[in-house]
């Protein structure tokens, strides 16, 4: 079975394939536009800019849906691991929201949702569906205590794991929703997947 698939793959293979760019990505390179907009490091800014003191509790996301590709995942807040990596829910059916960054629906910065592409048991993750996503796909984030935040997919990029743009986690600049999962190549002895798939979506007016 694998052999047959390999043959098919070999045939389909088109053009040079740099390690970092497997799927047919599209849209503006998210890093570039985001970098221009991101805040300057080093400078301190009045904590959350216009909002008067701190307690601007954003409505946390509960569920993310991309109808076009059948993605439907529960969302729970995540932080970082002891090693400083993004913590990701172990269940590949569940997505994580990086709770230290903006929440979906925030007026600024990149709200990050992350999900495993597959689980240790071999099941595909909900975020595996991102490989099928097309420009313009509608992304709905249902929130606790607020209406849905709705976005439209504008870009997808595949980047080496050590090359994830820092703008993915920017807290200033234009609002976007960033969906992240893993991407091949898969090298078990090097820890598994070697790249990240990054899908960028912009807010749609409610």
């Amino acid at each position, binding site marked *: 079975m694998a052999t047959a698939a*390999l043959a098919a793959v*070999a045939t389909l293979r088109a053009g040079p394939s740099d390690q970092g760019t*497997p799927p047919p990505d599209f849209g503006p390179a998210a890093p570039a536009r985001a970098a221009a907009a991101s*805040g300057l490091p080093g*400078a*301190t800014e009045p*904590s959350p800019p216009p909002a008067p003191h701190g307690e601007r509790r954003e409505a946390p996301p509960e569920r993310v849906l991309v109808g076009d590709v059948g993605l439907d995942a529960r969302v729970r807040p995540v932080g970082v691991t002891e090693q*400083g990596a993004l913590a990701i829910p172990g269940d590949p059916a569940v997505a994580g929201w990086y709770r230290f960054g903006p929440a979906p629906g925030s007026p600024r910065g990149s709200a990050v949702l992350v999900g495993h592409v597959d689980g240790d048991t071999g099941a595909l993750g909900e975020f595996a569906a991102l490989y099928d996503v097309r420009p313009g796909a509608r992304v709905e984030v249902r929130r606790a205590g607020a209406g849905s935040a709705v976005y439209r997919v504008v870009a997808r990029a595949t980047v080496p794991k050590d090359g994830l743009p820092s703008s993915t986690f920017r807290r200033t600049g234009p609002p976007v929703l960033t969906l992240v999962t*893993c991407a091949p190549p898969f090298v*078990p002895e090097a820890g598994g997947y070697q790249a990240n798939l990054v899908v960028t979506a912009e807010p749609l007016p409610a």
Partner: protein
Amino acid sequence: MTSRTSRTSRTLAASAGACALALGVAAPALAAPAADGDDTAMVSVFHGVPGLTVDVYANGDELLGDFEPGTVTDPQSLDAGTYDIQLFEAGQGPDGTPAVEKKIEVPAGANATIAAHLSADGKPRLTAFVNDVSKVDAGKARLTVRHVAAAPAVDVRAGGQPLFKGLENPEEDTTVVDAGTVPADVVLAGTDTVAIGPADLDLKEGAGNVVYAWGSAADKNLALAPQTLGGMESVPNGVDAGGSGAAVASNSSDQWVAWAAAAGTAALAGVLVARRAAGRRG
């Protein structure tokens, strides 16, 4: 603070005809934040003299009006230089006798907080603290405690554990801890005698969380006042969102064939290995 600041802004803006930031408008030394970062500094002001509402003057110009004890301003851009800082009881300046006065040098590129507070023996004074605004790791918060109270040396405890020991007015101590809410209190140094608290500190991730211990032990009005300085976050150092490799098993679904196609031969070799090796969370 907001209503007072905006009123001050209007007054100042009327005369200066410039931006609406009270702290910036006041000084002729004003520079737009984006103009030339090299020659400016970010300055905030903390008021920790109990029972005294003040007007703050810099080089004879009003910087802040009706400034209430226990409040802190947002950082504003100021030209680097030396400022003659004067605090007057509200409405008494600038020709009267200041409650406290000090020349403070604001170096280029610095981030500083000027604190008006009581000395250990209860006299008003001004201290300039330099804020550490270097990045902290993802998930972490910087915690700084400044002893600006008329009180003896103290220890600061967080979550029941000693965090800082023997802190004296007007010293500060700083560390980096996990972000989140932590119960804290302030005790007389070397004792379990609680001077302030306990209080929950909300330590914000990627930020400098400064806590001022202020007031007067003799007057029994010791208190904590927070200041948060943002923009120190780092990104997580990785996103490991894969598991067994099932997603690259090309027989899972047709989509994977086309997709894996572009991944190249190196990746394919990896796939074959993957399917035989035990999946390791990647």
